């Protein structure tokens, strides 16, 4: 069992937790992920390692409540325990001094882009970061991102904070700007955002790395459920990735595969909300 040490509410649907998992913390690096299972009935869900503390043996995760498992996790509190916590999984990010880098984080993708931006900065790169979300209330870690970036651009879809635009707009401007000489782009966020970042950088031939969030089960290369089509054939995101060259990814197939269990996921949420309501009602009645 793995104890939750700390919880922070970053937005209505975005939460941060620090979890006691010394076996993961001793080796964790930027770009890697863990697989968590809440309880005996739980599914195995992948979450990026947003930060780690080797001395304290703790791992920070940040998640957005999009379905039953993440909603249930969001209701847990410090002191509660998680049934499984396996990792660190996947390849760490290749950190080098490339020159000028643009790091794009969309929505909950801000969390995993942060340690990457920090490491790139430490390695001597000039780091320009773009973070974006649908609206102001979904944004988090603006100051943390600013601290590890030479320049930070903040966007919201509705203009409630920062610039009113999608993250791809400022990205295109940076790529257009001949003086900037953007050497590489990192992008993490919803699959659809990563697809459009990929389309944006392609004409400029700027190498672009994305961290793919396919559906996973074991996370150790055993099931192939996480497979993604690259122009060289199928690869497993959990062991060959999670980072890939964005220009080689078959985005159509990736987006379609993410939808496969949508009806079941909806049913799980309905059932879960119903159960929460019932328990709420019982608690009310007991008062």
């Amino acid at each position: 069992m793995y104890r939750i040490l700390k919880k922070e509410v970053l937005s209505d649907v975005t939460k941060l937790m620090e979890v006691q998992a010394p076996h993961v913390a001793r080796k964790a690096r930027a770009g890697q992920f863990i697989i968590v299972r809440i309880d005996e009935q739980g599914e195995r869900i992948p979450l990026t390692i947003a930060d780690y503390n080797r001395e304290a043996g703790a791992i920070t995760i940040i998640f957005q409540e999009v379905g039953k498992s993440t909603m249930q996790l969001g209701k847990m509190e410090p002191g509660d325990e998680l049934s499984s916590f396996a990792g660190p999984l996947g390849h760490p990010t290749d950190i080098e001094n490339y020159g000028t880098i643009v790091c794009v984080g969309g929505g909950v993708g801000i969390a995993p882009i942060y340690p990457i931006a920090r490491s790139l900065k430490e390695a001597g790169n000039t780091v320009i970061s773009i973070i974006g979300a649908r609206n102001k209330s979904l944004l988090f870690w603006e100051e943390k991102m600013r601290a590890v970036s030479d320049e930070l651009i903040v966007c919201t879809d509705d203009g409630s904070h920062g610039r009113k635009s999608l993250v791809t707009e400022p990205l295109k401007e940076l790529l257009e700007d001949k003086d900037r000489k953007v050497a590489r782009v990192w992008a993490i966020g919803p699959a659809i955002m990563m697809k459009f970042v990929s389309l944006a950088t392609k004409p400029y031939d700027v190498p672009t790395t994305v961290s793919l969030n396919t559906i996973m089960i074991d996370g150790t290369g055993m099931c192939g459920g996480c497979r993604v089509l690259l122009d060289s054939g199928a690869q497993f995101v959990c062991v060959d990735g999670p980072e890939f060259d964005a220009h080689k990814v078959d985005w159509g197939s990736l987006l379609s595969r993410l939808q496969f269990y949508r009806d079941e996921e909806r049913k799980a949420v309905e059932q879960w909300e119903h159960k929460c309501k019932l328990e709420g009602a019982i608690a009310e009645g007991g008062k």
Partner: protein
Amino acid sequence: MAELSQKERMKIKRHDMPNQDQFVRRGNYDEVALGYSLETAREEAERCIQCKEPKCVQGCPVGVLIPQFIKALREGDMIKAVEWMKVKNNLPAICGRVCPQETQCEGNCILRKKGEPVAIGRLERFVGDYELAHRTCPLEKAPLTGKKVAVVGSGPAGITCAVDLGREGHKVTLFESLHGPGGVLVYGIPEFRLPKSVVFGEINYAVECLGIEIKVDHVIGRTFTLDELLNEYDAVFLGTGAGLPSFMRIPGINLNGVMSANEFLTRVNLMKGYLFPEYDTPVKVGKKVAVIGAGNVAMDSVRCSLRLQALQAQKSGENSGEVHMVYRRSRAEVPAREEEFHHAEEEGVIFDFLTNPLEILGDEKGNVRGMRCIRMQLGEPDKSGRRSPIPIEGSEFEMEVDTVIMALGTSPNPLVFVDAEGLERTKYGTAVADNETGRTKKPRVWAGGDVVTGAATVISAMGAGKRAATDISRFLKGEAPW
């Protein structure tokens, strides 16, 4: 019972295994084969003519002392029967259920030529179940040696190796990447063929009696590397199996509705997807499922599909659908256990022999809508002696399906080889290890089971774990230096 003459023994007919009704069982995951009663077991045991040179034993990969345990059983001495069994086989309740007996012990039984072999597997299961229920055979432990061994992987190879080392007094830690121990016995083989309580019963017993520590959620190659383990432990045994699935190299494999048998079976068995939404992991099949392959893995996939369809139909009130098994060779070459084939047939699987998919076809949403296949014929036997399938030109046809499950064999998962310099591998990805001792090319590292042989059987993995444990113990005592 009075002593029977050989002739009388050979007149007794082989006893059928009582099974759950073939129509009822399609709608549940309960065990299909219900097991012999004590009376039936003893009567079946009477059939063995106690050969002086028992051929059956030669057919068993670990040489179970078959005539001895059968004799004790028919004399009603269950304690003795268990003792004889455990000389060679730590997991009889499991092997009795899943060994391909028809090609091993029973395939060699002298009575096979004259009719039907002694039902050795069913008797073995009976003895194993008796032991699970009564625990007549305490796991004795030698005094502590102060040596530490890491066993990686908790399938039959790893469990057997850990238990034998624990008995010798070594301190054993078992590392497992998944959230629970058992390997294929838990994530692959379904409940209706091997109840998980049997597997956990064996594992818990070993842990409690021998103090073996199990560390789940530890992925060796990531959480720790092999070299890091070697810094902490005196010896390391790798029993990491062959869990990497292969996909056919045909167009359409990334469509929605195409999955590996490993994914499908893991969702169903390990994650209990058939109990969704009480359990969180979804699993679904369509109305027309095609499983490619005909080994045990394919057989488990068709039978799980049938059950899922029946459960879905119970909820929706619609008809349940069809499950096809698509195999490029013919009935005679089916590699699965005979009993499973028979059960699948009873449960209503449709077999498409001599058929090979060329392409999986999708609709505009990226979901599977069909398969383009070609008919095959069998040519001359190849090097392995099997008749190789050859496509019949012009015989292409389309098959309407909405789910495709690939059960095409697996190879060793490469993660454990990460940062393990000197651990040699073959071009098939298997670890190079000595067949007798299990020693790899890397000092203080042993390996056995599917990681060495490629996908094989439970009993051969167990045997390899046992042989390696013997050698590891000798090494640790200084009797057999590296």
